């Protein structure tokens, strides 16, 4: 039995790297600093160690050859999931380039709300350490922050010491839209976060009014979607009075039509505040199961985010056309490759097409894929790199045990070589 300290997690997105784990042969137990997201993800047991073709155990070589065979006769493969580490994504990009596939990260439809806003007008954002040390006012828009990242408050807001705040418990927290699901947002001084609740679908209107108030526009109505305009006026005034306000949202949680316009409204409001003699920053929440990693690696190797097509021999980006679920539904693809090295419950979409699954050992299928290759988990079975949600910090993942499982990169590189 070995104990390993300062273990970084690729699962929670916020880059916690203070976990203590015990490794007993192949069993991993989180001994300290676990959470509802990380602990089960680290402790997931290995079941499959053998690759399968048509449900029967085969050698890795046979499975790789079968995958290459399916891809070599495909006119339009799609590679979904894209949940792995940097080297896994590198292998995935090489395979996509060679086979003319569509690359589509499984969280892209959520992330698209951010990319559309980014690519239209841009934003002013910040990162975790700036929040930890500077943020004196946090506006949480349309997301249950502690549900998203259970340790966010503990690590980045109620930290005991900060460089520029004399008392972190004095930070003000305001929720707009969803209310918090637990008590993590209650300050150490016992102050509860203010909640201005509304339906998700009302957020476009509420955000528009808030931005108008920030800009000093007169609003005639008394309430907007159930929220008193006077309450919104107070938020506007507080954002402008804060020294380093932060507005956070999770694109994935803004589950209504044209939510990109809400992201844009929010981001433009942040820009406005920066012209009013103070500082303010946005902070998008994301980064789970390698989605930032997928976008980063696809970004530097193709110049586009992780929804791109390579069947013309060069990368083409379209955030709508190359949605793998739409392509599968419309009969625009003929082979599905599903790559998911982190989460056994994240199974491939249901399809009649030939399916190749390169996924974490332990994934259970209703219908056996044509090829299943169990792989090790980055940060448990092999070393690697994963991006944190703020997209700046790549954490160095550790190898914790000797499982003998290949990495995503090993498998995808082998398939690419076999093409």
């Amino acid at each position, binding site marked *: 039995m070995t104990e390993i300290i300062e273990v970084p997690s690729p699962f929670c997105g916020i880059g916690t790297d203070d976990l203590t784990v015990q490794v007993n042969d192949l069993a991993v137990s989180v001994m300290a600093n676990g959470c509802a997201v990380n602990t089960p993800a680290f402790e997931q047991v290995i079941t499959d160690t053998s690759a399968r073709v048509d449900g029967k155990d085969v050698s890795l070589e046979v499975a790789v050859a079968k995958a290459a065979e399916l891809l070599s006769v495909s006119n339009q493969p799609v590679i979904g999931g894209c949940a792995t580490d940097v080297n896994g994504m590198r292998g995935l990009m090489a395979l996509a380039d060679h086979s003319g596939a569509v690359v589509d990260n499984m969280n892209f439809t959520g992330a698209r709300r951010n990319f559309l806003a980014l*690519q239209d007008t841009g934003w002013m954002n910040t990162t975790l350490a700036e929040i930890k040390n500077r943020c004196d006012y946090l506006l949480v828009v349309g997301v249950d922050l502690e549900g998203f990242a259970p340790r966010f408050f503990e690590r980045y807001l109620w930290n005991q010491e900060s460089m520029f705040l004399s008392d972190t418990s004095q930070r003000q927290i305001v929720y707009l839209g969803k209310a918090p699901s637990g008590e993590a947002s209650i300050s150490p001084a016992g102050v509860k976060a203010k909640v201005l609740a509304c339906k998700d679908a009302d957020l476009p209107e509420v955000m528009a009014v808030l931005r108008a108030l920030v800009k000093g526009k007169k609003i005639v109505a008394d309430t907007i979607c159930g929220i008193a305009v006077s309450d919104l006026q107070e938020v506007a005034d507080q954002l402008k009075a804060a*020294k380093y306000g932060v507005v956070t949202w999770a694109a994935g949680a803004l589950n209504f039509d044209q939510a990109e316009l809400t992201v844009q409204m929010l981001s433009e409001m942040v820009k406005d505040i920066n012209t009013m003699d103070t*500082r303010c920053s946005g902070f998008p929440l994301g980064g789970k199961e390698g989605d930032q990693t997928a976008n980063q690696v696809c*970004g*530097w*190797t193709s110049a586009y985010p992780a929804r791109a097509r390579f069947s013309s021999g060069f990368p*083409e980006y379209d955030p709508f056309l190359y949605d793998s679920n739409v392509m599968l539904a419309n009969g625009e693809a003929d082979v599905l490759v599903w790559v998911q090295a982190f989460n056994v419950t994240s199974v491939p979409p249901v399809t009649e097409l030939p399916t190749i699954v390169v996924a974490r050992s332990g994934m259970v299928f209703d219908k056996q894929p044509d090829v299943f290759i169990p792989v090790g988990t980055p940060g448990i079975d092999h070393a690697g790199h994963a991006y944190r949600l703020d997209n700046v*910090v790549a954490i160095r993942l550790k190898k914790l045990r000797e499982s003998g499982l290949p990495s995503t990169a090993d498998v995808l590189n082998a398939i690419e070589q076999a093409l």
Partner: protein
Amino acid sequence: MLIKLTGGTVYDPASGIDGKVQTLYVQNGRFIKRPANDVKIDKEYDLKTKVLMAGAIDMHTHIGGGKGNIARMLIPEDHRKDPVHRSDITRSGCGHAMPSTFTTGYRYAEMGYTAGFEPAILPINARQAHMEMADIPILDKGGYVMLGSDDYLLRMLTAKKDQKAINDYVAWTMNAAKAIGVKVVNPGGINAFKFNQRKLDLDENNAHYGISPREILISLATAVKELGVKHPLHVHGCNLGVPGNVNTTLDTMQGIGGLPLHLTHIQFHSYGNEGDFKFSSGGAAIAEAINKTPNITADVGQILFGQTITASGDNMRQHANHGFASPDKWVSMDIECDAGCGVVPFKYRDQNFVNALQWAIGLEIFLLVDDPWRVFLTTDHPNGAPFTTYPHLIRLLMDKSFRNDMLATIHPEAQKMTTLGSIDREYSLQEIAILTRAGAAKLVGLEDRGSLAEGAWADITVYTENADREKMFEKPDYVFKDGELVVVDGKVVHTKWGTTHIVRPDWDSSVEKDLQKYFDRFMTMKVGNFKISDDEITEDGRGSLTTHSLNGVT
């Protein structure tokens, strides 16, 4: 494999060879002595009438790191104009303003470049910089780690820590981030922006720390010198792009007390505020100051007309300039109590007075600095223009009549505000070889690169003489990297992986105790997880580290 390169005209300023017909021999990646007559030559290239230079080295180009990837994400419409098809030996990608990593490597190599250095590696983002550069084929790479707006250094300066402690921290950071140099960007200004300061002059204090840019420059330049790092402190000065900033830049040069300083993209820091538009050229004054100040080197950061995107650590100045964004979208980030970044697309227009004069100012500096060993050919890719414009820039430097033809087409008021038309100088091939090879290798501190001498690594570019220097430099006949033929007739024929150049200055291990405390109290990761290990660069079997020597430490 023994290769013979027969009868080319060699320009190798590092060896003092200026246009001499020579035959060179390459074995195991390096130049060797002429072998005995009975030794079998495996491959001979007849290079009679051809021009031979070392592979070119771009000592300041934004090719790795988060802000470049933000730039990529921001402008899909720019990529769509320049799709790059895959081939049996090359990967697909996109080109133009901010190319994908693979395309970056191919296009540099196809212009005869064999190394590029990322000048702005944030310590906290160094992994990303190296991971991106690890996906740039053919080129050698490396980078300068950014300090000066990091709260740790500013806390040290406020606490009046001694120079030895600063040196230890700088050396520790260089090791942790795998750097070959140290850069400072708008010294303290990126930090001041977080406290809502919108400008920071050389002697103006950071509102929180009470520290001025000049103090930061002196402490970092001293550290770099005392650690024996050959690349002088790489300085992106205060007030980038501000009319009248020429005085700040002159003051920066004079006020550094003779310490070695490299002033980067100095064109953006050479503006007067005279004339009808309160914008004028400081090019002549800057060049004269460089000529008189032997401890100063500079790269130009030439702008060239067209669409590009600017990506800088200087989010204070980028935010101030966001109104010029074209197309109108931009990103600014505060980053991890470490630094920041700002990404603003730009379209430089020859009929815009300011842009036209920026173009002329850059050329004035190139042509008025006497010593080609102290000025370097850059566009600050992609900030002044994409690196693929270098052959055009070389023609502007080498061909006065072409230059004057171009000058006659720019905004008429800008023509009146520049002395460019009266400058007769034309760069020689040898001088171009100094700017882009020998001088760059020396400045970065690279051993056995940038030269065609026996023992040096065989990075070679072979050109066909052409009076049209743009045509000559955009399409080399051959490019060799570490003795392997990678380009023929301006097209990649073979790819390989270059090395990562670093230095490893010594530091007192006690520095890590304070850093560990600081990380545990204020940062968001453990100090042990912050440091980049050697195997992170080498474990994929493609990357390697090349450690260069330091100056004798006194």
